[in-house]
């Protein structure tokens, strides 16, 4: 037992490096295992329904793919039990359900929508997605088990910010243009969308920056006529964010990412400061920026026009969104059933890019409004877990980090779902955990992994609050 005791003391003193190895004491996770069992049942039923519709036989649609996925879920669960950490037990099953829905959807779409060859083996849409889902599970679980310290995120926030801006610039300069959007960065055989990683980096940076400067932004005012603004120097990041968002729109033509970044930024700013005026100023800036963009750039004006009335040109400019809305209409309340929707015209699904931009429309047709509401509910569960983790966290940094990470998932899901439903103009962001795509899955797995790690209250306490340089200059000492 001395070993245990020394282990404990070492933990409470808090070594700077993450501790991977240590005494392992398995801890059952009953909530998680029950929820995962529910997920497995739901997916098996879904696969049977899919098989019955498509093949007319009462068998699993793609038994091997589903078995591998369920096996991976079991492995992830067992790994967490063995690791014995007191982390959140709802997040993983929720995300696993979303991933499972994604797997069933990809299995059911034409497999030649995507083909990739790894080491001489050619994989179709569902197989590639399965590979990415497994990688995502591995990433989330590993992070959830391994990370015990946040100092590597907390200390180097400007470094992370630099990495983020660097990634963005790399994409600006070296990005490959696909469909008029410069989103993809290709390095050797690997390609990815850096904005997916960037959103995580953004949250880390903002959590660090805001937790440190929160007090100053809240307490101090700069009067500008009737307006009470925060101290001007602290508006700098807001302006910088605004500029970055506009840059993303102009250079990458990626409205969705810009919306996501700005939305997350404003939400975190509000959580940190409680100042509604900042959010209002931000929104005004955003609206002004959008209006400016719309007057300057034809492609943005076109997007807005399509959004306002896609039925003007249902077979031309408005085709995608009109077909998506038709899919929701065909689905009705209960849907047409898995595999029975998406009537193919000339062997193609009616909605182009259904696997990346419109999975919700496809699911809306096959599972109906009931299914859409259920899926939206799953996303809300993820958000709720994240916010809860944030509210219970030991200090401001962890709080803001968890809240920001949860909002990244929530706002991104909102943006693309709203685009599918013509609530917002359509943008090209992915539906987290459901859309096809490795970058998206891995980045969102990173988010889940960090949230899992943050949810463990038994890890080392956060460091004492650092006194910011500005306070020192003002001759104040820490209130503590």
């Amino acid at each position, binding site marked *: 037992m001395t070993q245990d005791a020394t282990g404990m003391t070492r933990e409470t003193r808090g070594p700077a490096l993450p501790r991977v190895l240590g005494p392992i004491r398995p801890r059952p996770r009953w909530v998680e295992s029950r929820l995962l069992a529910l997920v497995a049942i739901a997916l098996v039923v879904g696969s049977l329904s899919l098989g019955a519709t498509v093949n007319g036989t009462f068998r699993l649609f793609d038994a091997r793919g589903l078995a591998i996925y369920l096996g991976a879920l079991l492995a992830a669960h067992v790994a967490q039990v063995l690791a014995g950490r007191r982390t959140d037990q709802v997040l993983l099953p929720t995300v696993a359900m979303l991933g499972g829905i994604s797997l069933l959807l990809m299995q059911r779409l034409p497999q030649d929508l995507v083909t990739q060859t790894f080491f001489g083996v050619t994989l179709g849409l569902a197989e590639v997605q399965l590979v990415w889902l497994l990688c995502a599970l591995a990433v989330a679980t590993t992070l959830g088990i391994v990370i015990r310290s946040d100092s590597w995120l907390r200390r180097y926030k400007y470094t992370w910010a630099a990495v983020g801006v660097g990634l963005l610039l790399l994409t600006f300069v070296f990005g490959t243009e696909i469909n008029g959007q410069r989103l993809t960065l290709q390095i050797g055989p690997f390609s990815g969308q850096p904005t997916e990683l960037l959103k995580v980096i953004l949250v880390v940076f903002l959590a660090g920056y805001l937790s440190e400067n929160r007090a100053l932004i809240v*307490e101090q005012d700069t009067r500008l006529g009737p307006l009470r603004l925060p101290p001007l120097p602290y508006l700098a990041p807001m302006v910088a964010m605004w500029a970055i968002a506009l840059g993303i729109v102009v250079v990458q033509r990626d409205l969705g990412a810009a919306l996501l970044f700005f939305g997350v930024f404003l939400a975190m700013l509000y959580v940190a400061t409680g100042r509604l005026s900042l959010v209002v100023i931000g929104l005004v800036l955003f609206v002004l920026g959008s209006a400016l963009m719309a007057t300057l750039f034809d492609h943005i004006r076109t997007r807005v026009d399509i959004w306002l009335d896609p039925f003007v040109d249902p077979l031309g400019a408005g085709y995608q969104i009109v077909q998506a809305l038709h899919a929701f209409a065909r689905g009705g309340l209960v849907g047409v059933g898995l595999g029975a929707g998406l009537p193919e015209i000339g062997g193609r699904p009616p909605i182009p890019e259904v696997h990346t931009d419109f999975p919700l429309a496809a699911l809306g047709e096959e599972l109906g409004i009931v299914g859409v509401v259920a899926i939206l509910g799953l996303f*809300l569960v993820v*958000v709720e877990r994240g916010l809860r983790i944030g509210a219970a966290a030991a200090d401001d940094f962890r709080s803001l980090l968890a809240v920001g990470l949860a909002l990244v998932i929530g706002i991104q899901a909102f943006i693309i779902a709203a685009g599918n439903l013509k609530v917002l103009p359509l943008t090209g962001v992915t539906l987290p955990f459901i859309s096809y795509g490795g970058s998206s899955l891995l980045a969102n797995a990173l988010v889940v992994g960090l949230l899992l790690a943050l949810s463990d209250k038994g890890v080392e306490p956060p460091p004492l609050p650092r006194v910011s340089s500005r306070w020192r200059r003002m001759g104040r000492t820490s209130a503590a």
Partner: protein
Amino acid sequence: MMIGSGAARRPLGRTTIHVAIVMSLAFALLAGAAGYWGMVRAPELVRSPNDAAVIAAARTVPRGLIRDRTGRLLADNKKDEHGEFYRVYAGSALSQVVGYASPTFGRAGLERAYDAELTGLAGDPLTDAFAKFGAKRYDPKDLTVSLSLDLQRAAVAALGKRRGAVVMLDPRTGEVLALASTPSYDASAIANPDTARAAFSALQADPALPLLPRATLGRYVPGSVFKIATAVAGLGSGAITPRTTFKQQPAAEKNGLLVEGYRVQDGHHPATGTTALDLVGATEVSCNIYYALTGLETGGADLVAYAERMGFGSPLPFDLPTAVSQVTNGEGRQPGGFADDVELANASYGQAETFVTPLQMALVAATVAHDGDLMRPRLVTSLTGDLSGSRTIGAESMGRVISATDARAINAAMVRAVEGPLGRQYTSGAKVAGVTTAGKSGTAELGGTGEPHSWFIGFAPAENPRVVIAVLVEQAGRGGEVAAPIAGDLMTLYLKGPS
């Protein structure tokens, strides 16, 4: 001020809850949007020809057949070399009604209006909900329409090379017997994938607008046929009785009727002399002054209100889309939307801002023919599907417009307009031999030097009308000389069969 106290120390929980509330509301908004598209807009969207399921079904499932009232095939299916179906139609006389269904050029006419039923997607919501889970997903329905193929062909032949329209219907049931528009076109050529492109571009380039169904979508100045609508409003509102005469009328025919300083002119009817005419007499000689005075007596509000009871002012409740007929453009400030009494006086005999569809004028005649009770016009009488069985669409009233007594008074006046000693001179050829025939011709002046539109509306037998007709021939001359004989021939054909 103490930095680091108060708000700065505030835990983040409160603002986090605000964010949670906002996110929940945002997602509730999305759920609402899903409900909107999936429930509220769904009935319209799933029937649209742009719907992917409709398009997919069109290629793989044979469309429902269309038959006329005697069971003759109007629209049939054939298979092309790829095994995909295409439509064949029973001749070009029907094209303006039945329309076409083409994978490339979409749909028109009944093929468009009943696209969902013909492809077998639409049904009642309950059947649909179960059909989703059944093995057979499509249930194409065969349509029976009230048209008579013979009558339709005769109507198109009677119009010949002229542009115009003929509407015939049964006033007792609202069943449309013929709905002809010329020039027509060959719908089979558009439906056939081999000839579609050439045929369609030729039709689009044709200045005679053969793709326009004039009977339902053409809007024309009505001229004197509108007087029947004025009579309906005058009698219905009680502004006049069948015996009402206007003292100033005979003199006004010579000197013009002074309305607000403007003279409404009308050629003097030589045979009427100085007699002040009543409803029957004025209708027989088509007296503009009498009807102008009737309109002024009725007032703009009632004239428009009674016209609206007969379908003016909104699209007609019909199987096909219809243009909106108007008494006035409604921009004026006087009651009913007239600019002034001059416009009202001119509109009362159909010459101001009054524009009507031939189908609308047939309904005016049908109102009189069916003793003031207007039946909803309709084409499709039954739908039959393999799964859903047969559904009959019965006759229904659009509501009583005027009393039977008033309707009979106008009926009598219209008989005189065709059969009276003076009426015969104006309206030659409308009479069905051996059958009391009622009607009213119209010669719609268009201004300028062009020939007027030639109109006739009427019905027979007057005692118990079985057929109502409206004939319009564009810029063909006097109504009594051009439209009336066509009407007489077609009513004869319907009532007596081919001779």
